[in-house]
């Protein structure tokens, strides 16, 4: 039994395990310890599964028909290189965040009300995110989105304080709107093609009227753009994220926007034939997202808000890579996604520690932390420099790949983006250095409390993530070639389809004749 056979069996586990864990933790809401063990075990198993898939997917996409129903009729889960990579990184990050939040919950002593609901919700969030990564079906992708969105609403308004309800209502309303847009896009897709299976869609979209196709493409882009916080659709993000508890903000910032980016990559490459107009639009959006996002960050005086704006800004890099629509560009974009999930989550977790040590996240009330807590200073400094893209860290490598390809394509627009990327990178450095100077170097404007101990359980996961970020630099060679192979299969268009339909696209006929008619009959 080689790794592919194992992989076939374990593909559904990333969705199933967290859901089971969610049910169990909800039933065991009185037993905080049992909840912790179950949640940690579930995410650890998912991480193992993801690594197995990462290896298996390198020799071809792993496809599982749920309930033994063939692809056009049944729903299938597909783990190709991109999915497996996203799954691995996100499950590792979520595990670290979970451990961090456990320690925080224990340290704060509030093991009662919020924590009882925290674990089930966190598990549901994980299931939704992983389902979105694995889905081979547009409607199942929508369901994945809804699962993690519903969980995110609960996590964002945890405790129901006034500020969280205010920020949460904006977040929820915007997310509801994007869901409706997504739903409309699916309905139009089904009306025009008669299927929602991604592999089948990639064949059928080529045959339908280009105008209808462009409409659906832009609708999907709009829905995912809201999720990914692309510039004109991004203003909800810096307002809603910072109010949540540190671990929640960390996992939202690291993962939820990237699920939007993943969905953009998946739909733009697999479903729609290359269209230079859409690429051009994406480039403009990428440029605006980068520059306007980082200008927002420069103006901020609170580390959490500052980081939220850099988050928006750096989404622009990934969109830049997607818009280049070439293998090197896509490879750099995927590499950047992996880097950014790690580094952004790390920074938010570390800021949680800063808040704990310094009593605030406002740069006007922090100071002298480098002296008071040198370990914390290192934990902040390394990912911060990584975010700004200082060589030789992984952020630099991702940006370098993007710039190289931008210069290689050499159109005026890509040159504008290259300049925009560099400017954004410098401004990120400026914003980060400003935060560093104020929080860690200036003489404290107000008394920083002495003798605050930071629980080892919180420092540990944060350190692990910092180390993981550094490890990304160390393994950058193999990782980058992996993302290059992922980009190749994404852009060649037939690998995914062949994996889902090994006997050609009429596999449904083997299942039942009525089914085939239904599938073809639009």
């Amino acid at each position: 039994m080689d790794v592919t056979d194992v992989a076939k069996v374990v593909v559904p586990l990333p969705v199933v395990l967290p859901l089971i864990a969610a049910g169990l933790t909800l039933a065991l809401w009185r037993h905080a310890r049992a909840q912790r063990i179950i949640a940690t075990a579930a995410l650890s198993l998912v991480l193992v599964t993801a690594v197995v898939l990462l290896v298996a997917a390198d020799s071809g996409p792993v496809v599982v028909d749920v309930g033994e129903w063939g692809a056009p009729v049944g729903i299938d889960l597909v783990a190709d290189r991109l999915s497996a990579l996203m799954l691995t990184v996100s499950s590792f990050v979520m595990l670290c965040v979970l451990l961090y939040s456990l320690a925080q919950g224990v340290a704060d002593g509030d093991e009662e009300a919020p924590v009882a609901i925290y674990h089930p919700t966190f598990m549901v969030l994980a299931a939704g995110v992983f389902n979105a990564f694995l889905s081979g079906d547009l409607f199942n992708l929508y369901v994945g989105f809804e699962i993690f969105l519903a969980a995110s609403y609960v996590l964002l308004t945890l405790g129901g304080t006034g500020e969280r309800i205010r920020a949460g209502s904006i977040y929820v309303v915007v997310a509801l709107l994007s869901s409706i847009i997504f739903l409309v896009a699916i309905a139009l897709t089904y009306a025009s093609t008669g299927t929602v299976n991604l592999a089948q869609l990639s064949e059928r979209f080529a045959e339908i009227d280009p105008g209808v196709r462009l409409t659906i493409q832009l609708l999907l882009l709009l829905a995912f753009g809201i999720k990914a916080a692309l510039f004109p659709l991004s203003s909800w993000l810096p307002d809603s994220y910072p109010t949540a508890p540190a671990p929640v903000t960390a996992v939202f910032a690291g993962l939820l926007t990237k699920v939007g980016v993943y969905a953009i990559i998946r739909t733009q490459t697999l479903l729609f034939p290359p269209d230079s107009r859409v690429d051009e639009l994406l480039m403009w959006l990428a440029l605006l997202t980068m520059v306007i996002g980082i200008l927002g960050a420069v103006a901020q005086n609170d580390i959490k808000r500052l980081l939220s704006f850099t988050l928006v800004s750096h989404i622009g890099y990934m969109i830049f890579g997607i818009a280049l629509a070439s293998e090197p560009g896509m490879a750099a974009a995927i590499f950047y996604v992996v880097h950014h999930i790690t580094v952004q989550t790390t920074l938010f977790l570390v800021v949680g520690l800063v808040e704990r040590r310094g009593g605030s996240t406002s740069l006007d009330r922090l100071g002298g932390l480098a002296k008071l807590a040198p370990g914390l200073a290192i934990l902040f400094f390394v990912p911060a420099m990584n975010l700004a893209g200082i060589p030789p860290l992984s952020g630099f490598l991702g940006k370098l790949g993007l710039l190289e390809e931008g210069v290689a394509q050499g159109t005026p627009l890509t040159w504008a983006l290259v300049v925009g990327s560099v400017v954004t990178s410098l401004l990120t450095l400026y914003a980060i250095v400003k935060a560093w100077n104020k929080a860690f170097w200036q003489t404290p404007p107000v008394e920083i409390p002495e003798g605050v101990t930071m629980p080892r359980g919180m420092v540990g996961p944060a350190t692990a993530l910092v180390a993981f970020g550094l490890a990304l630099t160390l393994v950058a060679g193999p990782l980058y070639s992996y993302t290059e192979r992922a980009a190749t299969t994404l852009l060649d268009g037939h690998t995914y389809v062949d994996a889902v339909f090994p006997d050609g696209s009429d596999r449904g006929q083997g299942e039942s004749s009525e089914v085939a008619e239904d599938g073809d009959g639009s």
Partner: protein
Amino acid sequence: MNVIDMTPSLVLVLAIGVLFAAGVYLLLERSLTRVLLGFILMGNGANLLFLVAGGRAGGAPIVGTTPDEEMSDPLVQAMVLTAIVITLGLTAFVLAMAYRSWQLHGHDEVQDDLEDRRVARHAARNAPAFEDLDTEESGQTLDDEAAEVHDETDGDGDGITDARLDVPSARGDRTASGGTPGGADGTDDAGTGQDEGRER
């Protein structure tokens, strides 16, 4: 292979349009309850859109009870069912949030975000800089003054149009009786303004 009749029913299409229009309108409101109603309307609009996407309605899609050609598409119904369940859950959540907001603040209006409030504070702080020195003692700002001046000219402008279009009967005699247009204009306009004031 038989082709599904995809001609949509006009009633459904109109209903979708109305639901979406009303939904968008409500979604732009400040009150969370109205936003929720807007979301429900739009959600139902999307559900109807799925029905249209499934082609013409037919019999129950069960082999044996309905001939193949007359079956309606079961897949869209399954998708609509899922969407309805999701909408239900989210509706419950938003209701809870609106209730919590009402508990805390006594209303369920979505507040301005931090940046908006900061901009508003900036504007308030900068307002004195724009005050005119002459009007400082009377407590009037340039803006207030401008508003008043604007009112007068507004009336003036209206007066002219009124004079030319609407009230020739009232003053037509005077103009006709030989007042020179250049000299008379000012007084005439003032008069019209007053006339107008009285009429209102």
